[in-house]
């Protein structure tokens, strides 16, 4: 029997192409035009979600599920805005350091208490959401230096900005490390089978702590950049970036079981989410439409990633065949 690994590998790019075609057709039918400005808005959205999808995706490749990237995004923004009152560099550095600390705490708890990272980061999600309210005193905190936000998001080459270049650079660096270095190979090995990686003496602990630090730091980075851009940060997560980030990683071919996925795939998944989001905005769809779209995409991702999907489909087919003896006779 022929194996079909190639289909799974190109699926993220096929999905992206389908999303682009669908949005182009839908907007054309609606009489809306797509301009370079549309591309700019789309890339800015991708730059917001991108670091979260990247961190979440790489952690998932190593077999670690960081559910707190959305909360870390919000908390990181508040830290950056509050600590950066005198200089934005200080605010950014503080936020990134806090992110690294959170990742180290997660990693330590995962290793010491021998718990699933999913459990630990869910506790982190609750704690960080609360901490954002405590730190900001439940208010929107503001940032007086508007110039940094303007510089970050000023269009470069029509569709890019420093903001999106920073995020692209993150993808490039993490992608190269994952694909070409020993550390990258260790991430895949630990995600594929932690027990096997332990047996052959790979630095499992370093990988587990490393990917959790990476995802928390990247989430803090994105939160900080958005905080500077909006010149404010609020503890209320009105639109939780966790949803599009998970969708981007899963559409990008990352498996929840670990060991599978590429940074290029995550990037394609990210663009897919950004295209869908931009399409909904262009069609001036109501906000609940994006809730429904994200829910449907997430459910589709959960179903396609389900380990027992094939055997369940087979069983269902067999039952159908048993119920339709005529069809079976024909086939035989």
């Amino acid at each position, binding site marked *: 029997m022929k194996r079909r690994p190639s289909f799974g590998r190109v699926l993220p790019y096929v999905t992206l192409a389908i999303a682009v075609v669908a949005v182009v057709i839908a907007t054309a039918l609606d009489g809306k035009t797509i301009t370079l400005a549309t591309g700019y808005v789309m890339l800015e959205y991708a730059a917001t979600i991108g670091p979260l999808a990247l961190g979440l995706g790489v952690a998932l490749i190593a077999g670690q*599920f960081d*559910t707190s990237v959305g909360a870390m995004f919000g908390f990181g923004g508040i830290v950056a805005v509050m600590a950066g009152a005198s200089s934005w560099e200080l605010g950014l550095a503080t936020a990134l350091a806090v992110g690294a600390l959170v990742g180290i705490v997660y990693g330590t*708890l995962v290793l*010491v*208490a*021998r*718990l*699933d990272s*999913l*459990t*630990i980061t*869910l*506790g*982190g*999600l*609750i*704690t*960080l*959401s*609360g*901490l954002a*309210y*405590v730190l900001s005193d*439940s208010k929107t905190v503001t940032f007086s230096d508007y110039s940094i936000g303007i510089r970050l998001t000023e269009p470069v080459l029509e569709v890019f900005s420093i903001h999106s270049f920073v995020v692209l650079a993150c993808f490039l660096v993490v992608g190269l490390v994952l694909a070409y270095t020993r550390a990258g190979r260790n991430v895949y090995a630990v995600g594929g089978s932690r027990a096997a990686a332990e047996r052959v003496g790979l630095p499992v602990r370093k990988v587990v702590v490393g990917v959790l630090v990476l995802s928390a730091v990247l989430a803090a980075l994105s939160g900080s950049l958005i905080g500077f851009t909006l010149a404010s940060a609020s*503890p*209320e*997560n*009105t*639109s*939780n970036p*966790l*949803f599009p980030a*998970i969708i981007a990683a*899963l559409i990008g071919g990352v498996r*929840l079981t670990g060991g599978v996925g590429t940074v290029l795939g995550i990037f394609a998944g990210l663009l897919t989410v950004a295209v869908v989001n931009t399409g909904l905005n262009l069609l001036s769809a*109501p*906000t*609940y*439409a*994006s*809730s*429904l779209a*994200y*829910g*449907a*995409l*997430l*459910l589709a*991702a*959960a*179903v396609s*990633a*389900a*380990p*027992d*999907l094939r055997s*369940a489909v087979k069983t269902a087919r067999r039952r159908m065949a048993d119920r339709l003896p005529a069809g079976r006779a024909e086939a035989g």
Partner: protein
Amino acid sequence: VSSRPVPTASLPLDPRLAVRALPVAAAAALAVFAVSTSGFLTVANGQAILLSVAVTVLLSTGLTFITLSGNFVSLSLGATVLGTAALFLASLKFGIVAAILICILGGALVGAIQGAFVGGIGANPIVTTLAASSLIAGLVVGVTHGEAVLPPAGAHSFHALTQTNLIGVPVSAWFALGLVIVAQCVLTWTQYGREVLLVGANRDAARSAGLRTGRVTLIAFAIAGLCAGLGGVLVGARSGQATVGFANTYDFDAITAVVLGGTLVTGGRGAVWRTGLAALALAVLGNVLLLHGMTIYNQLFVKGLIFLGAVSVVSIVRIRKGGRIG
């Protein structure tokens, strides 16, 4: 099960004793903290606690079945509560009994659908329930156009659900107590209860033994949905209107109660009555913190730390015992 030998001598206490002593010590500390807070020891405040604890008890009771079945947690119970609260008020026009039944069935159906994905094809419970929460919120906002749902004019009987006291205790609290007792009986004495524990403890073994693990999971999610539907009835009846916002702490409260109750996050071990007691303890703590000026959102910080502390203690004690259940 760890292959690494763990020195048991390093633990000063018998782990079994530590497990028994910790909750008692925590409860005592909480009691002292509570009693020393001004405004805590009043009848009105006690009733306020019992009124607020009812919803958390309902949700965490249902959630315990999901956790016990080895499917970690659901993140869609809060959305189900808000959705069924709107459903309750909108369906009051058919009478209060019909409205309650509609909510119970609606919640159970929504839970069962998620359970079908998780149990039937092994879909990840976190991703599936996150998707469900987004779909439920989107659907309810779409149907209600984001406007508050109000009960039909002249409908007042539903206030009795949350405003009547029986022996000084709100009816909704009796409701919650009854549910905990029933759920614990289901867990202890029915075949389904034993199946849940077996599937959660070792899914492969349960499957080999001929248990229909998918069906057990589906029913666990349906029970959780049913309880969330009941929670929605109480929330709708208490506030007299329903709006579906994004921020609510129901999910986090329920999850923290289940974990604090000592239910093993990997499943197979735990008890509903302990979840109920933990929910009560969390409600008392929340009330005391509120009296100290800490809003429910600020309190998430404390609850998150309690969550992390509880899962770590339960897991470390288990490791020290050599990974054996007992």
